[in-house]
């Protein structure tokens, strides 16, 4: 693992505005001040209480949204959020949806076609791949969604909680495949609440608290401190993670 920086966040803040009439809105800062570097090949875990701004952080890294202050410096444009069933259209066939979803995740049509056999095999859909997705069970849909997302191979993969999908057998298989991919030398940012995932997969973790980088460091030690924090008031007492309302615009 090299220490080349792929994405750099410098004092990044993101606010959302809730519209409250013409030209008026309430501003909420979901992230106040977050800074860290993401290194080539590492798996970086993100932890934080509910509402700490973790999802916003992933969207920022994915380039889906821009920060309102600070800077995101990215050295690759192939960053994407693992999103299952992105852009699925129920009336199209599984194959057509795989192509569409693959293109949306940054593959070319040719690249999706080249991976189609793997997608069909992984999703275990067999001949159903040419049936309309509307006729699929939710398990089949989840399998196809996962198989496509798994094939879209960005330079930096952003994952919001690794959860196996589909029925029991597939759930295990998909979670395992995901873990293998993360364990390889791919650059991954993963948001998770699962301590085992952190210990098994992450090289470093970032702890976000109230929209601020509270700490960055070695997983085992930081995880212990993080879990400790739940005992002092934790999310059930004071609602630590609630985005602060800082003013009216």
């Amino acid at each position, binding site marked *: 693992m090299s220490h080349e920086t792929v994405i750099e966040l410098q004092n990044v803040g993101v606010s959302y*505005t809730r*519209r409250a009439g013409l030209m008026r809105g309430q501003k909420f800062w979901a992230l106040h001040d977050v800074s860290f570097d993401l290194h080539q090949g590492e798996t970086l875990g993100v932890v934080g209480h509910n509402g700490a701004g973790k999802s916003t952080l992933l969207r920022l890294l994915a*380039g889906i949204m821009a920060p309102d202050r600070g800077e995101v410096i990215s050295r690759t444009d192939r960053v994407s*959020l693992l999103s299952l069933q992105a*852009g699925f259209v129920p009336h*199209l066939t599984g194959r057509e949806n795989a192509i569409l979803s693959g*293109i*949306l995740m940054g593959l070319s*049509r040719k690249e999706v076609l080249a991976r189609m056999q793997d997608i069909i095999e992984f999703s275990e859909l067999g001949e159903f791949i040419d049936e309309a997705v509307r006729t699929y069970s939710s398990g089949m849909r989840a399998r196809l969604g996962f198989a496509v997302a798994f094939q879209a191979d960005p330079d930096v993969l952003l994952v919001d909680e690794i959860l196996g999908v589909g029925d029991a057998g597939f759930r295990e298989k998909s979670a395992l495949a995901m873990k293998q991919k993360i364990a390889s030398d791919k650059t991954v940012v993963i948001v998770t609440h699962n301590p085992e995932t952190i210990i098994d997969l992450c090289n470093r973790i970032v702890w976000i608290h109230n929209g601020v980088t509270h700490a960055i460091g070695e997983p085992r030690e930081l995880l212990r401190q993080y879990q400790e924090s739940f005992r002092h008031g934790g999310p059930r007492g004071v609602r630590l993670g609630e985005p602060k309302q800082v003013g009216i615009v």
Partner: protein
Amino acid sequence: MIPKKYVELIWYKALAELKAEAARAYIGFLWWVLEPLLYMSAFYIAFGTGLRRGGVPFLAFLLTGLVPWKWFASTVTNGSNAIQANSALIQQVYIPKYVLPWIVVVVNTIKFSIILGLLIILLSFSGHAAGITWLALPVVIAIQFMVIISIASFFAALVPLFPELKLIVDNGIIVLMFLSGIFFKIDALPPRLAAFLRINPMVEVIESYRDIFLNNAWPEWAGLMWCIILSLVLYTVAGAILRKYDRFYVKLMIG
């Protein structure tokens, strides 16, 4: 220029939407023919027989105006909503936002080409044979395409920022329908009013189709030049707004 990967996205997404639309109804893509046919008959009944009693010449006059108008009106109406309509998608993956109105325009252009084909068949049956000036048809279609993509992109860029604008667009389209010279010749109006109404590029576009189809004449190039200039300006402005707010629109949908 649009990078190749986004051209591919626009094209494949447009085809996917057309296929999905066809698969949704029992008679599928027949609706693309039936719907405008019903729409046009309604206007023909109202204006051709009821109010005016124009007969075949009026029918040809009306249809050569209505067919291009329908392409314009449905595309601008849907296109101005393009970013909101994809709000779930743009929260999941990054797509440059200018791509979204393009998809709507491509979908509607494919539907329009079917109707235009029908119109040409219909016109040839009513004695309007193809002449040399029909060579200008692709040019007029291309210019109308420019008008449509620029106006659709312009409103697509602004509507998420000012949601009320959508109502203005929808109602504006209805008003404009009666001021685009579909039902009467613009030049039948007082000259100063006519000159004012010609700011609307669809007036020139519709007259150009009529020159070609009905009069076997070349279109008025000066008027079409105005359409091109207006389109380029609007598309440039739209592009600048879409680029500026490219990664900001999504926040309006979450907040």
